[in-house]
């Protein structure tokens, strides 16, 4: 790729109109992220209807602005009131709120803002470097491998998104089933219309998504009658001056923590389904373990603010890597972005970066730029946030319910889409009330078409079904899917059942097989390392007499006794 696409992307992203859109997007994200009950995914979902009238770069830039703003917005509510605005900023509250109560709100906010900024920038660099490389690997994939990748994405989403794996799997399968309703993309045949003509056209992905996610979420937010009538936050928090310089100095002193947390964020983002809500806790935990002063954590330690804020913003870069390199959305936010790309007739796939270089560079540039805008807008949004949180939830819910209707209508000018929104609003609310996670359903709806198309191509190319386990990448993804499905059982039984001693060694040995099958030097080398690691683990367990490891809690109880 030459420099022309990069120059073109800069031109598009830095055009006054696009800059205005990005400022609006970041501001909306910051405010939405700071409101408890509003998730970042919901903010991005609600942005979508505005973007279809825009060019692909403009639409994606706006959404990236909302995404980055939302990830950073949660810290305002968390630090000033002790209630995290989004699940991505839960760990920020552990030390942010105590630091504010110690009379340093400006420093606490500054640390949050600058850690978010640097975390995001680190992940942006990784995104630019890694996405094209990963896309190159993606070019090796055949339809068998893509099908197995979808199976893996759905399995890991199901196992990570709820306490009950069975419910997660059922949710994913329901999503796949919803995707089969209407005209079959492969053969052009109507399916599951039950003799009802409008259903022959199927359900648009976006009305389904808005219904399942936004509509049902709004109704959950107003379910408690009294809570819905109270202001979003009853706190005496007031706007403060952010101490930028002091914060930058502290963040610079925590450079190792910053990089470690950012890499945790990127890696978590790359994994399907594992988003900022997981990475911020992981990074906080690692920072505490590595700290020379772990007893200060929970009492306003700057390290405890740097880690979660750097990681949750870095997660965005990781999620974009998977979407751009493989065309597979890792979470609801990237699923919506994928939907936005499809609206503009851009098909995300491993060839996306090379086929749509200007758009890909546009996404990279917009992701960088959004972090600068975020720092700039944070101070202004602080005042808007303090005004908005004095409103009761039912004000917002009533208005946004209608907005969802206008938004989905605008997608194709069809009242039918509002009916779809309404029906899936009910479905989402009922499933959520019954404890079914919604993320696997949404990914099922998005990935269903990709899975069927690749299955059809695979069978069409060669009717030998053993190719699903004899092709290295396909086998690799199926093995990871199998072990990720078993992971919740493993986690639940560590220290209780003897078979858990074999889980990691067996997984490592199993994964080494496809890696060795891939040929070359690096991948078989990694495979051999995995075998060595598995044998070492088994040897350690053998030396310990196959004794079950004690859990941390049990160990401390035993020591106390």
């Amino acid at each position: 790729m030459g420099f022309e696409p990069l120059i073109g992307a800069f031109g598009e992203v830095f055009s006054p109109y696009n800059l205005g859109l990005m400022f609006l997007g970041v501001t909306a994200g910051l405010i939405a992220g700071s409101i408890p009950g509003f998730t970042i995914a919901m903010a991005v979902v609600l942005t979508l209807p505005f973007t279809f009238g825009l060019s692909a770069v403009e639409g994606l830039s706006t959404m990236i602005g909302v995404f980055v703003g939302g990830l950073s917005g949660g810290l305002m509510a968390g630090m000033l009131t002790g209630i995290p605005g989004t699940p991505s900023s839960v760990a920020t509250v552990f030390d942010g709120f105590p630091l504010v109560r110690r009379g340093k709100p400006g420093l606490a906010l500054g640390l949050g803002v600058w850690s978010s900024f640097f975390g995001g920038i680190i992940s942006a660099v990784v995104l630019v470097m890694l996405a094209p490389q990963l896309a190159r690997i993606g070019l090796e994939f055949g339809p068998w491998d893509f099908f197995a990748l979808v199976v893996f994405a759905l399995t890991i989403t199901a196992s990570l998104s709820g306490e009950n794996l069975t419910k997660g799997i059922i949710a994913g399968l329901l999503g796949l089933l919803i995707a089969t309703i209407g005209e079959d993309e492969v053969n052009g045949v109507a399916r599951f219309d039950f003799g009802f003509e409008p259903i022959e056209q199927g359900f648009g992905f976006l009305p389904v998504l808005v219904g399942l996610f936004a509509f049902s979420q709004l109704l959950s937010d107003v379910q408690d009658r009294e809570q819905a009538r109270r202001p979003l936050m009853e706190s005496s928090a007031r706007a403060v001056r952010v101490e930028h310089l002091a914060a930058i100095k502290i963040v610079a002193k925590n450079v190792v923590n910053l990089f470690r947390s950012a890499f945790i964020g990127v890696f978590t983002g790359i994994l399907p389904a594992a988003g900022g809500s997981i990475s911020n806790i992981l990074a906080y935990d690692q920072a505490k373990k590595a700290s020379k002063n772990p007893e200060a954590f929970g009492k306003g330690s700057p390290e405890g603010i740097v880690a979660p804020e750097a990681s949750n913003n870095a997660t965005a870069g990781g999620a974009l890597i998977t979407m751009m390199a493989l065309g597979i959305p890792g979470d609801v936010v990237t699923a919506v972005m994928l939907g936005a790309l499809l609206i503009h007739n851009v098909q995300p796939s491993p060839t996306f970066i090379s086929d749509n270089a200007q758009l890909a560079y546009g996404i990279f540039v917009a992701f960088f730029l959004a972090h600068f805008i975020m720092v700039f807008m944070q101070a202004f949004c602080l005042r808007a946030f303090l005004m908005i949180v004095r409103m009761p939830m039912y004000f917002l819910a009533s208005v946004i319910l209608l907005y969802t209707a206008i938004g989905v209508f605008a997608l194709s000018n069809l009242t039918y889409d509002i009916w779809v929104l309404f029906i899936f609003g009910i479905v989402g609310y009922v499933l959520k009330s019954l404890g079914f996670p919604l993320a696997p359903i949404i990914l099922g709806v998005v990935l269903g078409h990709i899975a069927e198309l690749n299955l059809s191509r695979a069978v069409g190319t060669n009717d030998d079904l053993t190719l699903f386990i004899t092709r290295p990448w396909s086998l690799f993804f199926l093995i990871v899917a199998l072990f990720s499905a078993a992971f919740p059982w493993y986690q639940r039984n560590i220290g209780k059942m003897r078979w858990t001693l074999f889980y990691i060694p067996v997984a490592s040995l199993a994964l080494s097989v496809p890696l060795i099958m891939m040929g070359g030097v690096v991948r078989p080398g990694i495979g051999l390392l995995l075998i060595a690691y598995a044998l070492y683990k088994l040897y350690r367990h053998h030396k310990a007499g196959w004794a079950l490891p004690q859990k941390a809690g049990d160990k401390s109880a035993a020591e106390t006794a």
Partner: protein
Amino acid sequence: MSLNRDVVVALLLLLLCGVFFWESGNIQLTDYGQLDSTVWPRIILGALLIASLVYLWQALRGAASEDAGAAPQAAAGAAGGGSAGTGPGGLAGWISRYRNALLCYALFLTFLLTLPILGMLLGGILFVFAALTALGRPSLKLVPLHAAIAVGTVGAMWAVFTFGLRVFLPEGVLFSFQ
């Protein structure tokens, strides 16, 4: 063994699998294409059937342990359809718990049914006003505020989509001049 909420949901899922399996028989078979249009949905339905059976088994095991430990709670859960032991039981308790959601769905349904007549602007204003009034405190003082919010926000959204994004939102027969 008692019937808890999860058992009912698992049975409904099995019923759903059955209905879709039956309906998959109505999918037209083509003599072209590499994969019949029925294959992929049936693979999903097969997997869903297995997952639902596992869920049913887990739910029955849960019910058995509840029978041994907390049978009254399980019965309340089945009767209430909600979480056991919270709030008043029976239909009244269920309606009370889901009042706001039910109201919103009823209002949205009314809005959808009247959309061809009232159009997006008037229908939208009425919907937002009705939702605000139904969800907010029952007070006459709030009526002007709710009306102002409804007119202001819906008017703004309508203007942005109509003039800014050039979307032809439904006018409704009341306002249609064509």
